[in-house]
């Protein structure tokens, strides 16, 4: 499976960040990369509870992301499934960790089972080990 890890240290306490990530009124104020606005959010913060986040793209199209909570360990960790509506076949999974250190917190996002049936098949066939060997060649071009 392709797993992506993205980290960022933010000058805030873990509790503050956990709230920003799970309270709908706050989510709507920051969620998404530049150009994407969160225009609606629903969060049922309990194990098995659903969330839905509406992402408005620059072309005004709206994409809903949805999933269920698998792990909730406030304020340090959240694990939830992730898929784009209308439902795709398989769910991806996102883990968010808030590792506090003084007045800073390192936010670590782990995004697993990244998309598509092709990638899943490739994993089953041991594709990703091969890619490492080819990486050197690709970097050289």
């Amino acid at each position, binding site marked *: 499976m*392709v797993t*992506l890890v*993205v980290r*960022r240290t*933010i*000058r*805030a306490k873990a509790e*503050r*960040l956990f709230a*920003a*990530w799970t309270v709908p009124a*706050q989510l709507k*104020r*920051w*969620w*998404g*990369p*530049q150009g*994407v606005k969160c225009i609606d959010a629903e969060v049922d913060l309990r194990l098995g509870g659903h969330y839905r986040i509406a*992402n408005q*793209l*620059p*072309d005004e*199209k709206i*994409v809903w*992301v949805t999933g269920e909570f698998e792990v909730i360990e406030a304020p340090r960790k959240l694990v939830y499934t992730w898929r*784009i509506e209308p439902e795709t076949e398989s769910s991806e999974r996102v883990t968010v960790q808030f590792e506090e250190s003084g007045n800073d917190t390192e*936010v670590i*996002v782990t*995004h697993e089972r*990244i*998309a598509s049936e*092709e*990638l899943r*098949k*490739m994993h089953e*066939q*041991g*594709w990703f080990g*091969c*890619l490492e*060997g*080819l990486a*050197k*060649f*690709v970097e050289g*071009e």
Partner: protein
Amino acid sequence: MLSSEKQDLSEGEGQLDLVFRALGDPTRRALLARLAERPAMVTELAQPFAISLPAVSRHIRVLERAGLVARTVDGRVHHCSLSATPLKDVEKWLHQYRRFWEGTLESLARYVEDDSEK
């Protein structure tokens, strides 16, 4: 990764499918690994494999169609070399996810850090 970005890729997606399918075979992956070391003639490539030359040739054609191998024919000799462009396309496709999360965490940082200064 959100659908407008997927739409931007739709033209390349047919090609991406060919790449995934080409890579979805252990013999073809081994052939690519060999070509990553240096270009080779089809006959050279066939040597380490316990399969026929026509079978290797078929694999090379699949890799060619995916744009992963470039073949030059010099008289009766077929030279093959690795073409990394499709692999870069795969990397680009995966890179969308990284950009999405980096952008999202940037927004989170601005939201909480600016907020605390008020």
